[in-house]
């Protein structure tokens, strides 16, 4: 099964989300470098990850 591709929510370019990804896992957009959180795998969805301040 090929990995689903989603548009990066930051730059709009295509990002491959591994088919065995776990919700909560981070994937990195190869185009703009932003970290995207996998928010769902059914259907696949991502959102920009923002780390909280310490």
């Amino acid at each position, binding site marked *: 099964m090929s990995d689903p591709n989603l548009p990066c929510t930051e730059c709009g370019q295509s990002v491959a989300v591994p088919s065995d990804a776990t919700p909560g*896992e981070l994937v990195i957009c190869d185009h703009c470098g932003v970290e995207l959180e996998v928010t769902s795998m059914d259907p696949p969805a991502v959102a920009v990850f923002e780390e*909280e301040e310490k």
Partner: protein
Amino acid sequence: MSHPALLLRDAIAGARAELEARYDVLVDSTVWAWSGGAVHVEGSVLVAAQADAYQRAIQDALDPDRPLNSWPRPAVLADLSTPFYLQTWGRIRSGTVVDLYRGPEGDDLQTQWTEAAMVRVFLRRDAGRTLVQLPDGTVGWMDSQLVGGGGTQPSSDPWRRYVRPHVGRPIDPRSGTLSGVARIARARLGRPYRWGGNRREAADCSGFVQSVLYEGAGILLPKNTRDQMRKGVRVAAPAVRSGDVLFVRGRSKNLMHVGLVLPGSDDPDLTHGGGTVIHSCLSRGSVIEEPIDEFLDIYRFTGARRIVAWPGLELQ
């Protein structure tokens, strides 16, 4: 319509003003020109964000339809691939403990360095702190009195001796074994957590992983957790096994944390997960080891990377 040279001049001035407002200290020696119908740049900036800002400003001013990366880009001094001869170098002597801070003032420690090394010097000051880059790629401010070797330029790359992790695949260890890494890591159990630290005596989570893999495998990881997460190859949660680096975050707070997966006592051949995670834990205040299942009950799985290709542990 304005001449391209004037548009370029205004674009550069605007970008530089924005950068000056964004950074307390700006390292920027760029000189821009319009010549022969094209943009030219000489000089360098410190970080990629500065080069990005210039490229965007030029694109907006001269030709928004032309791809961003087709515009000239200055050398980025903090990029590890930037040639050594473009850098200014300083020396850290053996026996020196360098504390590297985020700013020219304040006590926000971001990492440490404890062996003799050459450092890239970006902004030298006689007193106070000097802006440098350590061999692990961290840029920050250290005590100016500890930076020696002013004015001496090396004839070859002083950082050539460091083995850095790959991106997209694991790297063979320079030395050591996974069993040896486990011994080194476990010898630190109970040692205190220190924010920004990466020494044997005290470290934060990413500093602990960095220090253990440097000592045990000879691989120099970046210090920052999020930079570490970009190294090696991704491992899916069910495939995590001994030697992998495991990234998590709190369940109540989106704060990144990292630990090293070690073989459990029931996994003597080191071939499968289900072992333990050893990590320098902020909430417990020290280095602790706990079963991987319990670790992932406490934290949210955020990713796992196979950074070192340990012999005998082929990819499954």
